[in-house]
């Protein structure tokens, strides 16, 4: 209890210190701004990965527009109000943690909130766990810059829940206890299976957590000017605090609060956008098509592909596919990773152990689907609204990836009522983004620690012989260590391109975890060898395919692109009347290209150019994962596993024998 108080005091002090420190550094955001293609890392997981490097070069290479390059702008937040709102969120969530800590006495309390979460609560928590800042800021940004493609991108994130609902939620509730390892080890040799399941859980969680942490650091720097390292430490300390002291109860409530705030913010902002549109959706879309700025923006986008469009045709093009997502195979590959990967995400699976019955698990998925789907539909309004009211040019002048679109829209919509309302609304949405980060990272830390403490420590090392006190202690200690590692990785990865890590997490979950979960639940002949080969092959295949994919940086490819920019710029300079020099923006691009053209060497795994052309490995790695799992099981048949199938199958369908699973 004392340690807890010290911890809470320390984290509060740290947050205040962070705020004070930031206050000293006036306008650090200006310095941070050029690096801002990075939150794109967080925004729009896989897809945006393409945007920063190659596209940036391309857009510079296109003949400069007649209009002067817009000056570098930044989003001005009202520090006092914003930091005040952050402190309110910290205070409320800390209150939840103190309350939750009192209820967390057994391992079941720590990992599964004692099975005492209701279906409705769990539905909100799933939504809170799932909708990251990428959904919140990234997708609306994509819509505001690329129209239809951004909307199409968001669809897969909801459809994924059909798999969760129909295939995994209820059987997992009935057959599992706390972790993926519990489900998989039921009729197999528990030790090796748990060890591999834990490894895969830790891998998925680490990839996802790294992307979230780096995104969080960059976002905080951008929003309130707290330096990157301090933001990571602040977010990390809070995350560790929630999980170590409050376990699943606190994590659940942080997620519920966040989902409520997120929906309230999105709803309010969409309402303001619709007031402006006179609640006429058809008129709203006509405004998009008729906007001269959007028309101009689209003509420039399609010009890169050598297509000339202008006027209303260009405006209409904004509502048609193909401005952003240009490789259909990559889209299908990502779609597969989403549809199958969501159901294999350890932190999502874990949520089903917190409800008492299969019926509650079912209800929670359905509620989550309505929240998530409703949110993405509102996101369309926000994205298109931002395109109308802020113009794509205005949005890219603040952040080339468009991640600030929603926040800028909030400020403007509020300011149209009164300037102070604009500041308040912006501060509120910044606080929502902050809560979003906290909710997602806490869920991930809890999932990773459960795998290490419950699967590896309690069941592999201690053979399941650990009393409640020891189990809870192990869980808390592991959460602390996992959280500390998360902070360290976040600090180390500041300069890394982490955009592909979210897609990688989904790909590993889809290729490694999901095949073995489905086969364990539904295939009589499945066994230990199948679980291990499926997990290994699926995970390794996804990681290796990403290592040789265009997601990595290939210095020689960068140099090639830079050489093209130099040629284009020199041509442009030659075409200028004598005595005139390139605009500042072009001159900068030329200087950067000259530096980049010197780059040489190979990618991380020693390649000159990508071996595999897709950014998303799912198309190949998912079938490989399934095949390996099936072949592994067929190659080493096991009678006991087959005989126990009846038990697994009856249990998962009826919930009989669940007392063992809940252990109360």
């Amino acid at each position: 209890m004392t340690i807890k108080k010290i911890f809470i005091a320390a984290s509060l002090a740290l947050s205040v210190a962070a705020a004070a420190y930031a206050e000293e550094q006036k306008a650090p955001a200006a310095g941070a701004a050029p690096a801002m293609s990075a939150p794109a890392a967080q925004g729009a997981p896989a897809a945006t990965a393409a945007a920063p490097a190659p596209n940036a070069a391309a857009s510079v290479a296109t003949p400069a527009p007649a209009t002067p390059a817009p000056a570098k702008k930044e989003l001005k937040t009202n520090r006092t109000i914003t930091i005040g709102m952050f402190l309110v969120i910290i205070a409320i969530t800390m209150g939840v943690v103190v309350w939750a800590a009192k209820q967390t006495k057994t391992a079941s309390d720590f990992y599964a909130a004692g099975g005492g979460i209701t279906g409705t609560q769990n539905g909100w928590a799933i939504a809170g766990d799932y909708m990251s800042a990428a959904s919140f800021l990234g997708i609306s940004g994509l819509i505001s810059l690329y129209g239809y493609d951004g909307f199409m991108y968001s669809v897969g994130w909801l459809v994924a829940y059909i798999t969760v609902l129909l295939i995994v939620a209820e059987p997992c509730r009935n057959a599992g206890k706390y972790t993926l390892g519990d489900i998989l080890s039921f009729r197999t040799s528990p030790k090796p299976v748990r060890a591999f399941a834990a490894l895969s859980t830790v891998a998925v969680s680490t990839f996802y957590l790294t992307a979230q942490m780096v995104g969080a650091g960059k976002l905080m720097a951008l929003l309130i000017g707290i330096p990157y390292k301090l933001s990571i430490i602040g977010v990390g300390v809070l995350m560790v605090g929630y999980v170590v002291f409050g376990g699943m109860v606190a994590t659940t409530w942080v997620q519920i609060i966040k989902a409520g705030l997120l929906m309230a913010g999105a709803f309010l902002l969409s309402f303001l956008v619709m007031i402006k549109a006179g609640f006429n959706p058809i008129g709203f879309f006509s405004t998009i098509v008729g906007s001269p700025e959007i028309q101009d923006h689209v003509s420039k986008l399609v010009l890169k592909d050598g297509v000339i469009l202008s006027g209303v045709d260009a405006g209409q093009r904004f509502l048609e596919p193909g401005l952003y997502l240009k490789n259909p195979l990559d889209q299908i590959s990502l779609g597969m990773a989403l549809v199958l990967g969501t159901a294999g995400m350890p932190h999502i699976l874990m949520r089903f152990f917190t409800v008492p019955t299969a019926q509650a698990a079912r209800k929670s998925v359905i509620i989550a689907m309505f929240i998530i789907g409703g949110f993405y539909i509102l996101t369309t309004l926000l994205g298109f609204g931002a395109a109308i009211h802020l113009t794509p040019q205005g949005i890219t002048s603040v952040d080339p990836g468009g991640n600030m679109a929603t926040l800028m829209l909030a400020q403007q919509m509020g300011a149209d009522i009164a300037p102070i309302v604009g500041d308040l609304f912006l501060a509120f949405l910044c606080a929502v983004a902050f809560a979003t980060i906290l909710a997602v990272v806490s869920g991930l830390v809890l999932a990773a620690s459960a795998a290490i403490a419950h699967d590896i420590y309690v069941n592999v090392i201690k053979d399941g012989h650990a009393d409640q006190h020891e189990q809870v202690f192990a869980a808390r200690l592991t959460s602390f260590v996992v959280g500390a590692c998360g902070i360290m990785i976040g600090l180390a990865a500041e300069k890394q391109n982490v955009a592909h890590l979210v897609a990688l997490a989904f790909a590993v979950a889809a290729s490694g975890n999901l095949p073995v979960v489905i086969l364990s639940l539904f295939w009589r002949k499945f066994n230990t060898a199948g679980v291990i080969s499926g997990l290994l092959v699926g995970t390794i295949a996804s990681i290796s395919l990403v290592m040789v994919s265009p997601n990595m940086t290939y210095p020689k490819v960068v140099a090639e692109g830079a050489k093209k920019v130099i040629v284009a710029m020199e041509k442009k300079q030659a075409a200028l009347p004598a005595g005139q020099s390139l605009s500042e923006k072009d001159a900068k691009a030329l200087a950067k290209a000259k530096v980049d053209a010197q780059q040489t060497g190979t990618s991380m795994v020693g390649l000159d150019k990508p071996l595999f052309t897709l950014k998303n490995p799912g198309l190949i790695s998912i079938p490989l994962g399934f095949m390996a799992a099936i072949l592994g099981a067929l190659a080493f048949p096991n009678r006991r596993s087959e005989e126990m199938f009846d038990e697994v199958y009856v249990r998962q369908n009826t919930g009989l024998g669940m007392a063992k699973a809940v252990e109360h």
Partner: protein
Amino acid sequence: MAERQYDWKAIAKNPKFVELHHKKTAFLFGWWIFSCVYYFLLPIGAAYTPGLFKVKIIGVVNFGYIFALSQFFVSWGIALYYSHVANKDFDRLTRELIDELHL
């Protein structure tokens, strides 16, 4: 709570359980495959039939937009339909099975 011993093999052969199993399998995998096919028509259609996606339906709103929006309603529809069938049919069969086993 003391753990009860069940004869899992006998339950698995119980006609009620077999009925539940057949109904559930057909329903779950059938609708899952339907939802996947319907979803993948979106990226495939957007890439290979752009002409169709451009057809304006209401004002400037085109087929592509309505199709993407329909994905949300189809997903919700499947979810609600499943919930209806599960609450009415699957849960009832499960209860009857458990009653029959005198558990």
